[in-house]
């Protein structure tokens, strides 16, 4: 039963990650992505998915999807109904599932973050309804498959498990909130294992939206650079398998990292702009540290939300600088959006997997185009590939509407 609630455990269980799957413009899977993030490779190219000739910005980090997906339990008909977002989601989920080595179950929660779900299907529906109203073909299918819960059910069908689905759509914080919510479910005793992630595909409407806001960089996305001029969009998905430490040990599973802290709140300042002083960002980072039982001094790397827009980066920089205090002077910070763009609902989950990579492989992801720090940055920006001793990392995600989410991970050694 969802209610009455499972009694809170006396001591919340530790939550570890035993599977991770990732799809970005750097490639499909952990290896290709780790190789790319390790050197700060940039994955932007001219957008081919829709016409951008009349937009200010012309590039994005577009994923090369395989012509056929790896074998799964999905039928040909189901495969045919997957849009780009659904395909990336299934690919990431397959990788995570295989890595975790989980057995299928019928009560395994799936928590996903997305801003748009199958929006490209919605766009196709709209165009056909407008241009060929008498043509009904595929419209019913589009009306069903654009919905995020239906895409989530395809993950179930692909992997052979089932359970409650929760779709969180807190704009660009969605992926971070999805992992945080999964952490909550395990810590409060409502689940022993949870599959969680985030995903979003490039779409014409969203691209046009950010372009209309003049939020897209017409040059190069350079988060925290004094000369930054906007963000770049990307697409992708990441899925992680979370479970109690006890469950992982019982199975003898390989542990990729531990999720030790989560904070979330809402900034009511403006629909699209953060509070200039980053007050909610500050409180959410503090909240995450409190739940993790760590201080800023113990954070070895901070994966910033760092979109590359003037307003986000200055606000986040002020918040990080205040939160970190003296630690700021030596705290390595970078935004991996410099490599793969802003993945919107997928960002928080993908960046969580990047954090796991840094913890596992002991390096810091650089922003190689970074040149001059914004004056608000009291911390160093990682701008060259470097190995590092990384034990605890913090990842920020913020969204339109003001929801902020912070996750903290610890190395499993």
């Amino acid at each position: 039963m969802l209610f009455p609630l499972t009694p809170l455990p006396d001591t919340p269980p530790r939550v570890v990650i035993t599977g991770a799957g990732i799809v970005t413009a750097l490639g499909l899977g952990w290896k290709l992505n780790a190789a790319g993030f390790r050197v700060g490779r940039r994955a932007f190219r001219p957008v081919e998915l829709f016409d951008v000739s009349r937009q200010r910005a012309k590039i994005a980090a577009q994923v090369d999807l395989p012509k056929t997906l790896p074998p799964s339990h999905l039928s040909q008909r189901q495969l045919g109904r997957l849009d780009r977002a659904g395909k990336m989601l299934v690919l990431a989920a397959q990788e995570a599932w295989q890595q975790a080595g989980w057995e299928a179950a019928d009560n395994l929660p799936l928590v996903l973050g997305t801003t748009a779900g199958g929006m490209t299907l919605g766009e196709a529906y709209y165009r056909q309804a407008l241009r060929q109203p008498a043509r009904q073909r595929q419209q019913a299918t589009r009306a069903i498959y654009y919905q995020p819960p239906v895409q989530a059910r395809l993950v179930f069908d692909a992997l052979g498990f089932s359970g409650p689905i929760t779709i969180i759509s807190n704009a660009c914080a969605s992926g971070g909130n999805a992992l945080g919510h999964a952490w909550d479910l395990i810590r409060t005793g409502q689940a022993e294992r949870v599959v969680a992630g985030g995903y979003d595909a490039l779409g014409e409407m969203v691209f046009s939206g950010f372009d209309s806001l003049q939020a897209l960089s017409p040059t190069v996305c350079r988060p925290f650079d004094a000369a930054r001029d906007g963000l770049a969009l990307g697409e992708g998905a990441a899925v992680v398998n979370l479970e109690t430490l006890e469950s992982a040990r019982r199975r003898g599973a390989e542990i990729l990292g531990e999720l030790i802290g989560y904070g979330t709140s809402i900034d009511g300042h403006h629909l699209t702009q953060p509070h200039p002083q980053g007050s909610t960002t500050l409180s959410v980072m503090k909240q995450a540290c409190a739940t993790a039982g760590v201080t800023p001094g113990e954070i070895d790397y901070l994966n910033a939300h760092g979109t590359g827009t003037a307003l986000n980066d200055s606000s986040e920089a002020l918040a990080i600088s205040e939160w970190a205090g003296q630690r700021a002077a030596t705290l390595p910070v970078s935004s991996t959006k410099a490599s793969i763009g802003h993945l919107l609902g997928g960002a928080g989950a993908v960046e969580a997997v990047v954090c796991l990579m840094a913890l596992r492989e002991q390096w810091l992801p650089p922003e190689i185009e970074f040149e001059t720090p914004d004056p608000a940055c009291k911390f160093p920006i990682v701008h060259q590939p470097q190995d590092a001793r990384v034990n605890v990392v913090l990842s920020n995600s913020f969204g339109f509407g003001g929801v902020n989410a912070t996750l903290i991970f610890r190395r499993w050694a």
Partner: protein
Amino acid sequence: MSKIFVAGIGAVSPAGWNVAALRQALDKGEPLPTQPLMRPGWEKPLSARLVPNPAVRPEFLAHPRLRRASPITHYTASAALEAIASLRANPAAKNFRLGIVVCLQSGCVQYSCRFYDETLKNPATASPLVFPETVYAAPTSHVAALLENVVLAYSIVGDPSAFLQGVALGAQWLEEQRVEACLVIGAEETNWITADALHHLDRSAIIAAGAGALCLCRDEKFSTGVELSAITDAHTFSARLDRPQAAQAMRGQLGKIFPGELLCDGQGNSPRTDAAERAAWKDWTGPRLSPKRILGEGLMAAAAWQCVVACDVMAEKKFASASVSLVGSNQQAIGARFVRADFDISHLSAAVPTGNIRP
């Protein structure tokens, strides 16, 4: 384990801008009139049940954040303010930390269509004022800004059954003492494209818009006398559990029904869509209320109306308990039971109104 109480309810529906209007329409028991909704390329309009213009412009629309907001935000805000009104009027609740969970299925379709239409015509002139209002999280954000003391906010997307997941999430936040009160709101707006899509999936259904809100709290002294008693598991549709089986599983989990209990179900006038839920409740002989038959297919808003109505009849002491049955369109089946906190059996069924409540 804390008890969870309902501190207030709110509604915007085709019947009007408050719970009283909703109650009046349901008591009357006659389907509300429909309005024509034109769609491009068709001479014959579709039918819809739209929210009427308010008799008096709500004061909250003067808030700077709501000036350009879409109707779904107006509905969400109005339902939220009504649900939280008594709590806000209580000095003892002045410093309450508030959570909000806004549940949506279609979400901000009006501005999404408008913005995409502008994009197709010429992206260089698509409005930057409209785009931010297209995101699912926009109503949540505006309402959080309006209420000011919101510390936790989630926007949940799903089929209508997800409203009860939102209620469970609110209960969880209360149990963990992260908030002292939590608003759970289900909201939808409509336009020609949602009506068109629904027409593809269910020709008998009439699209509707609005919102419903429950304000949950831990402390009984702030309650309307209604307590959340149970929410079933989420019985997700899958290859191994089809929609009728999920509905049966939900029904089975709600278990034995109390004498005189009211069933608030999600049946409309669609034989095919209603079949799974109808079969699950075929043994039900007690009173039953089906708000969709009067109000239309309000998607997530309709799920919220079911819960609002269930709580309302108990607050009005017409029933001592009410079950809510939500058999979603493509995700899951979930049920819930609300009870009167005092559960005085002498009030049971003493005042079963006529109209839409069918014994």
